[in-house]
């Protein structure tokens, strides 16, 4: 019966029983038969997900260790829940559905009551103010299906850093469930914008990746642009319009010290650290052109990398430091090029319609993110490092300045709705599925993600 069908199909499409058609039919039937055998107990059935499914997880409030610890205990579980929600990779279950109230951190939960929720993970924890005034936070990650503990840890810190503990716990759970490093224990530096659009005050600001703990680094007397985090130290490099030409500065977050990077005659801009944090690469204006230069922070020596009659800018290192991607209009319109970190020939990798700018190499090394302009729209997209697999993640009136999360899974960028309103920060994951607005006190632009703090 089956083999008949198998041979019938190609024969019908041929219209006549030609010899070739018959052979093809027999061949198809044979293939069908072998497929039937492959379905048997000998072969492994292949199963691929047909949709991207966030991991369902339950995070009941942490148990307060003492009478005064309820707020912190609640806060920690709130921050974790919020992190997971924003990530798009986890689906925290509504607390209203919780069947059990966790009151004892040391006893295993009643797994049977959690099973109906079909969750993959259950997070329990406890926050205790110790006699020495420090905060002890503990957590356990359970697999309710197996009834086993998957991960567990305790941290002791000053009470005011409780949010950071929540982020660290989030990262631990992320790693246990997804298998790779998280990005929650990280910060973002950005340009805070206040005031009317014609007299906008721009200040450097620092915040946690979830928008909490905003701190201003400059007073706003001078215009600042393109801040970038050092991958290895508490330093930021940025461009500032001072008295003379705009210059690239280096700013220490801890000490508040700042210095001009290099001593060049013209304008220097769009700086970025090398992956080892020992060098800063930037653009230097020379006449109508600009070229790429790299400065060693220890020896203070400067090396020229490009020498073209074009505007080369927005350089970004590959994570291993061996290559660079940058934007250049040497071919007419701004496009993305890749070249060796030591200079030499550059290869164009962007070939789509419109112009490409602000390329950023992912810390994982797999993608290059960019801003694409065309058709009156600004889009944020990613492509593989050879230029293939271009994927636009979001597009609209004005989106710009992508920056990768430390694990390379999420991008932050700023979006300007136009009109009198100012820009805001958004995150989107590299699949383009989950876009989230990042809460900031005012308008915000030019975000740059820090590496993981721990």
């Amino acid at each position, binding site marked *: *019966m*089956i083999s008949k069908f198998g041979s019938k199909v190609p024969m019908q499409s041929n219209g006549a029983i030609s010899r070739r058609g018959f052979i093809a039919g027999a061949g198809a039937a044979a293939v069908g038969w072998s497929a039937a055998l492959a379905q048997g107990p000998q072969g492994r059935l292949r*199963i691929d997900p*047909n949709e991207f499914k966030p991991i369902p997880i339950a995070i009941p409030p942490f148990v307060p260790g003492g009478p005064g610890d309820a707020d912190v205990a609640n806060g920690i579980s709130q921050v974790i829940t919020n992190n997971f929600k924003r990530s798009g*990779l986890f689906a925290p279950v509504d607390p209203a559905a919780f069947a059990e109230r966790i009151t004892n951190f040391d006893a295993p939960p009643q797994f049977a009551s959690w099973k109906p929720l079909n969750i993959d993970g259950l997070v329990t924890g406890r926050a205790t103010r110790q006699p020495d005034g420090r905060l002890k936070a503990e957590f356990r990650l359970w697999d309710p299906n197996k009834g086993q503990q998957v991960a567990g840890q305790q941290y002791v810190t000053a009470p005011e850093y409780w949010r950071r503990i929540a982020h660290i716990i989030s990262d631990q759970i992320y790693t246990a469930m997804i298998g790779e490093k998280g990005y929650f224990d990280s910060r973002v530096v950005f340009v805070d914008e206040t005031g009317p659009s014609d007299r906008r005050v721009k200040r450097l600001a620092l915040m946690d990746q979830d928008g909490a703990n905003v701190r201003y680094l400059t007073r706003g007397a001078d215009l600042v642009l393109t801040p970038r985090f050092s991958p290895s130290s508490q330093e930021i490099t940025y461009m500032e319009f001072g008295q003379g030409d705009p210059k690239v500065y280096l700013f220490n977050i801890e000490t508040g010290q700042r210095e001009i990077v290099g001593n060049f005659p013209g304008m220097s801009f769009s700086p970025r650290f090398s992956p080892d944090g020992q060098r800063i690469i930037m653009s230097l204006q020379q006449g109508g052109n600009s070229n790429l230069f790299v400065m060693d922070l220890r020896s203070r020596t400067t090396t020229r990398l490009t020498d073209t009659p074009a505007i080369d800018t927005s350089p970004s290192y590959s994570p291993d430091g061996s290559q660079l991607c940058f934007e250049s209009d040497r071919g007419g319109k701004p496009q993305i090029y890749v070249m060796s970190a030591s200079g030499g020939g550059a290869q164009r990798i962007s070939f789509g319609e419109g112009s490409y700018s602000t390329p950023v190499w992912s810390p994982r090394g797999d993608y290059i993110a960019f801003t694409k302009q065309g058709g009156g729209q600004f889009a944020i997209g990613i492509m593989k490092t050879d230029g293939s697999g271009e994927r636009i993640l979001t597009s609209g009136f004005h989106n710009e300045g992508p920056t990768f999360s430390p694990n390379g899974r999420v991008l932050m960028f700023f979006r300007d709705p136009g009109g009198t309103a100012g820009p805001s920060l958004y995150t989107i*994951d590299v699949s383009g599925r989950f876009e989230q607005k990042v809460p900031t006190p005012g308008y915000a632009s030019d975000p740059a993600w820090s590496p993981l703090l721990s």
Partner: protein
Amino acid sequence: MTFSDLARFVRSRKGTVLSVALHVLVLGWGLFSFSARSMVAPPEDLVPVDVISEDNTSKAKAGALSGKKEIAKLLADKIGEKKPTEDIVGKVDPKPVTETDAAPTPQPKPEKPVEKKPDPPKPIEKQPDTPKPVAEKKPDPPKPAPAEKPKPEEKKPDAFNPDQIANVLNKDKPKQPPKPQAEAAPPEPPKHKSERKFDAEKMASLINQKDPTRQAVTGTDLNANAALGSTRGMADSNVASWSGAFQTAVRRCFGFPYNGQDADLYEADIDIPMRPDGTVAGEPKIVAVRGPSRSVAMAMAENARRAIIQCQSYSYLPKNQYESWKLIQLVFGLKDLR
């Protein structure tokens, strides 16, 4: 040749010209219509083909071969025959006396019923009509019927006639009582009558008549259909591939949220020991994982394992093929995730 010559020719040979013209017309029409048709590519028939194991096919075929002949008719017969049997049981008592007398005459008839086998279905179609009146009759006089013995006796000759003229006469309602006999005869005519032949004694024939009629209707007929199992029997073994259903189910539960571009490189081999009731016996075993990052591959494997557990139970797995899914070997991947 001038135009007038042509006109004369046409006039003189109207038939030939007409014939030629018509031929040209027909051929021309055929030429264009057929050629036009040939230009249109016939839409390919997509025939859904389910992949079935050897066991399944052989079983399906066995069921179909033995069942085909009778399926349609038997299913219809069942409805019709059930009720008449009750009539027979009630009315057999009076009749045997006369039948044994008439026994010699029916002998020639065994041949006729064979010819009329195509006919019996028709009376059967009408039986749905007949049972109603019968039901009406029954409540009125269950025993008055024996009181009317003379009538059935008189009608017996009639009953034989309808056998011969079959359809036309059967349509009349008054002939309901005889029909049961006619029906009792056609389904198993040779057997009954041959039995009658062998048993010369009345008592023996009485006994024999009762038992076989009951068995025939409630026993063998029903069983025959059940054995054919055009619905149930096939459904059991026709789960084209349990693996397909299983795949779909687990696939629905499995969804590892990995968004790297190397997602398609990750794979995890997992063995699932199964119980006959379709639940997972113990923990699914992660046999091997592959991928650029072992931690991600392991996380995916754990995720798959949870999906298998949460997706339970797989009660639709065909029980009679338990051996084939006692240990289900799966390989999980992330190919469809970009």
